[in-house]
């Protein structure tokens, strides 16, 4: 690791050094943080994705809301806001059913952070979008919404 080099390059302010110290701690080779759940991102269906994320199955819930356009003109940039009222929400994932790989993003929500995320994803074609919530006791809940796509954002 060339962390020390980065420190020299970027350690200008006091807080920057603190930030780098945190980063250096997190980036130790083999630390859990640096791992990326490849298995989950290779899945093709909701059930497989839930299994890869460590659950047995997911049930539908009305406590999760997906805010997005009903018709997305450009599938390359579709904004989504996922909000969960499920008690003890520990993680929120966005899944696009008809994308080549279903899982788009998975957010871990520590205590103190609102179960609310807003981001933009790509959609290859008109599809159901699923918001999957994991609770701190390992239950999985989901809500889905169909978003129509006029122009796909995956192929060339």
């Amino acid at each position, binding site marked *: 690791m060339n962390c020390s080099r980065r420190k020299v390059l*970027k350690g200008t302010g006091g*807080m*920057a050094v*603190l*930030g*780098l110290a*945190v*980063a250096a701690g*997190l*980036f130790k080779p083999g630390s859990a*943080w*640096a791992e*990326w*759940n490849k298995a*989950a*991102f290779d899945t093709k269906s909701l059930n497989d994705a839930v299994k890869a994320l460590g659950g047995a199955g997911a049930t539908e819930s009305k406590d999760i809301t997906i805010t997005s356009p009903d018709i997305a003109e450009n599938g*390359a*940039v*579709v*904004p989504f806001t996922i909000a969960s009222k499920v008690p003890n929400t520990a993680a929120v994932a966005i899944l*696009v059913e008809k*994308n*080549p*790989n279903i*899982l*788009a*993003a*998975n*957010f*871990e*929500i*520590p205590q*103190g*952070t*609102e179960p*609310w*995320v*807003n*981001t*933009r*994803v*790509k*959609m290859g074609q008109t599809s159901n979008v699923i918001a999957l919530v994991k609770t701190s006791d390992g239950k999985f809940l989901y809500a889905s919404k169909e978003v129509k796509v006029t122009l796909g*954002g*995956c*192929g*060339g």
Partner: protein
Amino acid sequence: MADPMKIRANMAGDKVEVKVLMSHEMETGQRKDAKGATIPAWFIQNVTATHNGKTVLAAEWGPAVAKNPFLSFRFAGGKPGDKVVITWTDNRGEKRTDEATIA
């Protein structure tokens, strides 16, 4: 080296609302170039946000996150003047860390 992130952190009631705009290609690995060769995937895999050394959001992303990703989230316990530090790592191992002061 990738371009800096644009980060805004503002108080929204008693919580801090953070908005981040990252500069990244987010290549899916599905597209082909003019010669028909697949363009290899290149995308941000991990994003973490910390406030006073405590992680306030950790994300894992796939290539389906849009180009030049935007992310917004809210957390409690911050106050004006505190720093929010955000780091991403992509699948080529490139990293970028930027910070913002809560306004």
